């Protein structure tokens, strides 16, 4: 028998697997959304990129378990979150314990004070985009994740709870606290801009 150099053996042409086409059309269009969610979970951009790749690899391997009429984005988000938790466990880190707000009253009271001292009016003149960007960066992961799901991607509380594997009440309280923290940052930003040094008009009358 003639010796055969393995390098000369052509790779068998990979057969197109059933489901590749539906994966491409149903799962891959959510890459930007998964990226946004991964950015809310991961500590930095490189970790987020790894998380996105890991999510789609896991999704491809499990594609046969996805129901065609299911919510693919939610399914991908749940995979992404599980992959993130797996990474946290491997790194020996523990998710930070978080307290939430019981309802929207703390945020309303915050706004009430901002109206009284004139910060609210000054905030209206501020470019919110950079201020919001900085404020979002200061939120810790459990808060960022729920804000991204509900406020960014329009999930209901129930849907976000399913993705994160936590009770609906936890989503709600984290979301409410996160929004209040963001608003606090925005008001602080308006004050830092040196805009609140003038006394509010209502006090000068």
């Amino acid at each position, binding site marked *: 028998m003639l010796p055969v150099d393995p390098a000369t053996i052509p790779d068998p042409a990979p057969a197109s*697997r059933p489901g590749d086409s539906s994966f491409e059309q149903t799962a891959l269009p959510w*890459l930007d959304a998964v990226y946004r969610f991964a950015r809310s979970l991961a500590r930095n951009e490189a970790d987020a990129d790894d998380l*996105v790749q890991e999510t*789609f690899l896991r999704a491809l391997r499990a594609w046969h378990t996805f129901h065609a009429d299911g919510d693919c984005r939610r399914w991908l988000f749940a995979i992404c979150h599980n992959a993130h938790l797996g990474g946290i466990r491997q790194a020996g880190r523990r998710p930070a314990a978080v307290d939430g707000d019981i*309802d929207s009253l703390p945020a309303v009271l915050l706004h009430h004070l901002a109206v009284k001292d004139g910060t609210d009016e000054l905030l209206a003149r501020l470019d*919110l985009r950079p201020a919001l960007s900085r404020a979002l960066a200061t939120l810790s992961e459990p808060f960022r994740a729920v804000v991204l799901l509900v406020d960014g991607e329009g999930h209901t509380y129930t849907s976000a709870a399913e993705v994160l594997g936590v009770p609906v009440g936890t989503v709600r309280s984290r979301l409410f606290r996160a929004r209040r923290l963001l608003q606090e940052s925005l008001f602080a930003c308006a004050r830092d801009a040196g805009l609140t040094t003038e006394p509010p008009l209502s006090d000068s009358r």
Partner: protein
Amino acid sequence: MTNAVLDRVEQMDCQTAMRQLWDYLDTELTEARALAMRAHLVTCGPCYGHYDFARHFLDALEAQLQAQVAPRILHARVLGALRAEGFQPQFGEV
């Protein structure tokens, strides 16, 4: 909302309304509670002010979050990793 309709909906005080502000904006209230909330907001200036601020805040937040898209290089990297697993895209671009 007409006075006749307002007469039929549940009366809501300011504190109750403001405790439910986020739930209302997230359309997580029951129909009856949402109706009572709407009725309160159209008749209460200060609460409407808080509602209006919260609504604009959420709109700005959504726009900010939605503006973030994955870099093209990440699309290519993910596609490359999937191909290495045997995935064969039919249409090419992710």
